[in-house]
Each structure stands twice: as structure tokens, then as C-alpha cells.
């Protein structure tokens, strides 16, 4: 016997109501790193584009960082904790695989019994989580979603490896997604290149982050711009109409290469990496929060987000600035 199941009515679109960020207090400069590994401020600035990064304290884990950023996004949205019915936390630097972090974050924020899970798409995590949140809202599976990228990369770093310890950093960024008649989150273009699965890797629990820097640089500067352009096309936005380009803050040279190829002549290009380092899944909401706080991008304007990293996974979408 077949039955007809009832499903919720679909909503036309989803949009971002607000962002929030958290940057740990401790600033680590290039000069400080140069005291322990063979590197220099000049080398790091010219090759990676980082001047300083934030490193979380011993008492700040993935949950703690996420609570700060998520709480700020929630406050900025004007919603009450009880309005949130789904929490998606994206991270690739968890200290433990079980339990997932989203339920604890929700509990700490006073969000009562929401759907809650973690998502790992490494540095593409925020774009994947945002697409998942948008789909959930549009399908009627959730009304308001809190999306948080939270990373403590420092706990997976070999502080004697000058090829990685100068790049990665800690932080968290969050967004509140809600239903909207006019879509404010464009179609996601996502994919993966699994043949490069070993290019950025933590091999096991006793190891640290290892990266084939030049191979990743080659992949990112070649493969990512076409993905970004496809996201613009699918959203019906011409690159010249973009107000901002926010690539994952992997390396300023990659950010600049992607922006150059997208040819968004009127867009401001996110460069939060200069002061925040590479914070993986947190880098895009951290950069957006700073741009909005500084008034760099007007409310309602279209911004292009593109995440890419270990996996190799990538995702891009155009959003409307809240």
C-alpha cells in the first residue's frame, strides 16, 4: 500500500538577517613567530599576506568560540534564542569527534532543543553550511537557522613547521538565516576534487596539519574563479554588479588571483586574512562581519562568497548583504 505523506509548504527564498564574529584576544605577530621558526615578517607578508593572527586561549575551544560569535549574530538579528530551530556548526579543527558541538553551543545560547549538527567541509564549510541552512528554510524544515563557523586550528599545528604555523589561526563567525519572499541567498555551486584528498590533511590523531602548499596554490588559483563565476551566473548577477568578493581567506595571493579573474570591477575584495590569518570555515563570516561593521558594503548589495580547501571541497554562492 502506498500513502501520500504530508510535507510543509515550501518558501520562496532565504536570506541572511545578521552576522556575528569572535576574534580571540591574543594577537600573534610575524615577528613573534620568527623568534621560534626560520621565517620573517617580510617573507610571510609577501607570500601569504598575513601581518598578524589571533590564537585562542587554553580555555577557549570550538564551543566557546562559537558561543561568542553565535551570540553576537543572534543579538544583531533581533531574534530571541527561542526563535532559532536549527543550529549548524561547521569546523574541521575539533578536539574531539564526539559529541558534535552544535547542541552544546545551542544550549549555552539558551536555544531550546533545536535541530543541531556539525558539518565538515574544511575551509569550504561556511558556504556548505549556508547552502544547507537556505535549503532547510526553503523546504520548511526550519524557520530560523544559526550557522556558525568555529575553528581552533592552533591545536592541530606543528609550531616548528614554518610552512603551516604561519598560516592558520583561530576564530569564529556566524550568520542567522531566515525565510524571505525575495531570495537573499543565491543557488550554491558546490563540488569536490577528491583526487586531491591528500593535499591538505591531518593524517591521524597524533599528527598535525600538513599541506602541499604549491599544489594547493596551483589548484586554488586555477579552479576556483570559474566556480565563483558560475555562482554569479546562476544567481543572475553580473560580476560588475557585485559590491564585494569574499573568498575564503586562505592566502592573500590566492584571494587576489580569484578576484582578478572574476573581474568584478566595482567590488571591494575581502582581505581580513591580513589581521586574522587563515581561520578555515570561520574566515568568510569573519571577513563579512568586519566589512559590514566598517560600512564597506551597503545593506542589500550583492556579495560573492567562495570557499575552498581540504577535500578538496569547494562551494560558492551570491548573497545579499543584510
Amino acid at each position: 500500500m502506498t500513502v501520500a505523506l504530508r510535507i510543509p509548504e515550501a518558501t520562496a527564498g532565504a536570506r541572511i538577517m545578521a552576522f556575528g564574529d569572535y576574534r580571540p584576544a591574543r594577537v600573534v605577530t610575524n615577528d613573534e613567530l620568527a623568534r621560534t621558526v626560520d621565517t620573517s615578517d617580510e617573507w610571510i607578508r609577501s607570500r601569504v599576506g598575513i601581518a598578524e593572527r589571533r590564537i585562542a586561549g587554553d580555555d577557549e575551544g570550538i564551543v566557546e568560540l562559537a558561543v561568542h560569535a553565535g551570540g553576537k549574530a543572534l543579538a544583531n538579528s533581533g531574534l530571541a534564542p527561542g526563535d532559532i530551530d536549527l543550529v549548524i556548526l561547521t569546523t574541521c579543527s575539533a578536539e574531539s569527534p564526539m559529541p558534535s558541538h552544535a547542541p552544546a553551543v545551542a544550549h549555552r545560547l539558551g536555544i531550546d532543543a533545536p535541530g543541531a549538527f556539525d558539518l565538515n567541509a574544511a575551509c569550504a564549510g561556511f558556504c556548505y553550511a549556508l547552502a544547507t541552512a537556505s535549503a532547510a528554510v526553503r523546504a520548511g524544515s526550519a524557520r530560523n537557522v544559526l550557522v556558525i563557523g568555529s575553528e581552533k586550528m592552533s591545536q592541530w599545528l606543528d609550531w616548528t613547521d614554518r610552512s603551516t604555523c604561519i598560516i592558520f589561526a583561530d576564530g569564529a563567525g556566524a550568520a542567522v538565516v531566515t525565510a524571505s519572499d525575495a531570495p537573499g541567498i543565491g543557488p550554491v555551486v558546490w563540488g569536490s576534487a577528491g583526487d586531491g584528498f591528500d593535499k591538505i590533511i591531518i593524517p591521524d590523531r597524533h599528527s598535525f596539519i600538513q599541506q602541499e602548499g604549491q599544489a594547493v596554490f596551483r589548484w586554488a588559483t586555477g579552479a576556483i574563479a570559474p566556480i565563483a563565476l558560475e555562482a554569479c551566473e546562476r544567481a543572475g548577477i553580473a560580476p560588475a554588479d557585485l559590491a564585494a568578493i569574499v573568498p575564503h581567506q586562505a592566502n592573500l595571493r590566492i584571494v587576489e588571483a580569484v578576484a582578478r579573474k572574476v573581474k568584478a570591477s566595482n567590488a571591494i575584495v575581502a582581505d581580513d586574512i591580513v589581521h586574522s590569518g587563515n581561520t578555515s570555515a570561520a574566515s568568510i563570516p569573519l571577513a563579512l562581519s568586519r566589512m559590514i561593521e566598517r560600512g564597506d558594503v551597503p545593506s542589500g548589495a550583492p556579495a560573492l562568497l567562495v570557499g575552498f580547501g581540504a577535500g578538496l571541497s569547494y562551494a560558492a554562492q551570491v548573497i545579499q548583504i543584510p
Partner: protein
Amino acid sequence: MAELATEQQILDGLAEIIDDIVGIDKDEVTPEKNFIDDLDIDSLSMVEIAVAAQDQFGVEIPDDELRNLKTVQDVINFVQKLQGENPALKG
């Protein structure tokens, strides 16, 4: 569409790529120039140039080959050699 290029065409194409990526004037890019010493192009920019050259000339320049390409002429020779070996590009 990639096709067999003359030495001059490769030089012109390369000069355009270099201008686009690192902003060096096209006239500066001549065959005898060394990328690092004369043009002040670092290894990351060389990777970007290799990726762009790949799109334009239809030949792959892998990282381990890239290390041996010191001058503009080296790249021209490498592209010509690989294009010559590619049956799809022959008359």
C-alpha cells in the same frame, strides 16, 4: 582553441600573461630575461603564470618542470617542445 604557436606568438602570449598577473610591462618581457633575477617574479607568481600558460597554449607545465624554467626563452622552448609532441596540435 590551442594551436601550434610560433616563437613570437608564445613570447607575445607570455608577455600578456605576465602583464596581467604581475603588472610588468610587455616590452620588458624578452627571451633572455630571467624570471627571478631580471623580472623579480617569485615562485608563487610563476605557478600562476604556468596555470595561465596552460590555458592559453594547451600544454601542462607541472611544478617539477617549472623549477627548471629560469628564463623566458626556457618557457618558449618548453611550450614548443610539448606542442610538437601533442598529436592533436599537428597540422
